[in-house]
């Protein structure tokens, strides 16, 4: 797996989502984390150091809107390395000042549309995945005393409120609508795992406990490296055994490898490597 990941690296040091494709932020971040964990080395932040940037944001696709979620992921990666802190600081500052738009309340959707956490891109609504990544970045930054702590605390609270509001009554999260026209929508394993990681310091709360149960149950029938890897990483952060999920993950990594899915492969390698008590996602 690590060899496949190394071989899919571009000459400029980045990774695309698939071999031979343009370097992208998310795939590069996951590949860097996975290879570092697999080899027991510190994360190599050189590709992010040279990444195109504008106004403190890393630019994923020139000419396209800034991707907030993957900038937050990049901040988490940079904060794993002592030299990455100055590079992470502007992203952290941007995350503090970024919020999704508020929308009028809708009778069709059971949620509080006034909550403003994090959107995928500027001038859009807040969703689970960018909020989870931003919470992970800000909670990691707070632990390392980066940024203005009172402002970070305010934004963390806003993010946690949104996740609590958008949780499914069955436990867990999908992309960010839990009930539309009176119908409970299904939670997904990957977004549940991510949101749980972001809420790991709130594990006594009912919404977190319900999501953890949902994750454990739903992971049993999940069919992809992407989902199983995130579930395994999350459960490890929570100190819950994930050996059955890890076994299934090994099987599904074959599919990731066969179609060249760099993120699936990197997440899988990360989930199956390293000491369980050390984790980039532990706050």
């Amino acid at each position: 797996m690590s060899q496949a990941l190394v071989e899919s690296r571009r000459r400029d040091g980045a990774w695309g989502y698939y071999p031979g494709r343009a370097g992208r932020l998310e795939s590069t971040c996951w590949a860097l984390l996975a290879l570092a964990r697999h080899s027991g080395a510190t994360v190599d932040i050189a590709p992010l150091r040279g990444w195109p940037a504008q106004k403190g944001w890393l630019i994923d696709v020139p000419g396209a809107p800034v991707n907030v979620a993957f900038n937050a992921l990049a901040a988490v990666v940079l904060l794993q390395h002592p030299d990455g802190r100055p590079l992470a600081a502007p992203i952290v500052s941007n995350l503090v000042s970024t919020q999704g738009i508020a929308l009028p309340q809708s009778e069709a959707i059971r949620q509080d549309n006034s909550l403003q956490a994090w959107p995928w891109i500027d001038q859009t609504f807040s969703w689970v995945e960018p909020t989870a990544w931003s919470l992970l970045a800000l909670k990691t930054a707070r632990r390392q005393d980066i940024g203005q702590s009172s402002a970070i605390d305010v934004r963390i609270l806003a993010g946690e409120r949104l996740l609590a509001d958008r949780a499914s009554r069955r436990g867990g999260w999908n992309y960010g609508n839990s009930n539309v026209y009176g119908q409970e929508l299904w939670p997904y394993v990957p977004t549940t795992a991510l949101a749980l990681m972001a809420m790991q310091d709130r594990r006594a709360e009912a919404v977190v406990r319900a999501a953890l149960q949902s994750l454990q149950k739903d992971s049993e029938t999940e069919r992809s490296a992407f989902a199983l890897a995130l579930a395994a990483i999350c459960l490890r952060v929570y100190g819950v055994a994930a050996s059955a999920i890890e076994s299934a993950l090994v099987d599904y990594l074959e599919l990731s490898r066969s179609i060249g899915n760099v993120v699936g492969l990197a997440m899988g390698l990360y989930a199956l490597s390293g000491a369980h008590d050390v984790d980039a996602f532990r706050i």
Partner: protein
Amino acid sequence: MAAGCWRKAPFDRHAFTVPARSAVGLFAATSYSADLADIIFRGFQELGVNVAGRRVFLKPNMVEYEPGTAINTHPAVVAGAIVACRRGGAAEVVVGEGPGHRRDIEYLLSSTGLYDYLREERVRFVDLNHDDVKVVPTKSWYTDLRDIALPVSLLQSDFVITMPKLKTHHWAGMTCSMKNLFGVVPGAVYGWPKNLLHIRGMFESILDLTATIQPHLTIVDAITAMEGDGPIMGKPRPLGFVAMGSDLPAVDATCARVIGLDPAKVPYLPPASRYLGNIDARRIDQRGESPDRFATRFELIPSLEQLRLPDR
């Protein structure tokens, strides 16, 4: 702003031509075990579709998966289209989708069964959410977006076939050939769901995407459609046909009539008829079966009742 409220046309009138008449084919297929390749190939012949030498891009609809639901274009229809395109002499056939809710493409390919069909047919799949992208100018401006990032695999093909599942849609009224194009907007750029399109206006986005991509053909999976609270939580509803045509508004308008909706009330269809295609039944030539054979009354959520045809 609602799509029908524009006073000045937000498109270049010289860049679009609405045909005088449009052909729409409805071809009976009672189940997914029917010879769909044969049915679709017959559709090519009846509609004069020529894919010889073309690099064909098939864009089915995949959103999320739950057993027993009718959310996604059935993989047997995709496989049928692959075989029909090859029989028609296509130089290359590629399948691609960028699911709008679940970004986990391996999960969707495995759980829907599409991966097995693709492997059997030896066809490449492109994850449109994570493909390389190119920022291109939009060709109409209902959303006010002047450009949009689109997947290069789609842009490099020279014959795009949109392959929707016919469903009710609690925001758009119905989802068919045109709404299916939301799936080409890359999630890794714009996020999940494709919220930019909702913020800019769902109807407006449907129009601008159709104008910008200009698919060459649609093949609609209406063998089992979805009624009620679509596009996710609705109920499967067997209809027993595949709809095809090169004029997307004409096909969508025909499908709307079959399920009991008035195309003139589906908000994006009247503006589409100004520059993208025909929705007036008098300008549509039916091929294959008559729409009357399949005409029915779909269950609708209360907010969509206003879209019904007067006599249904």
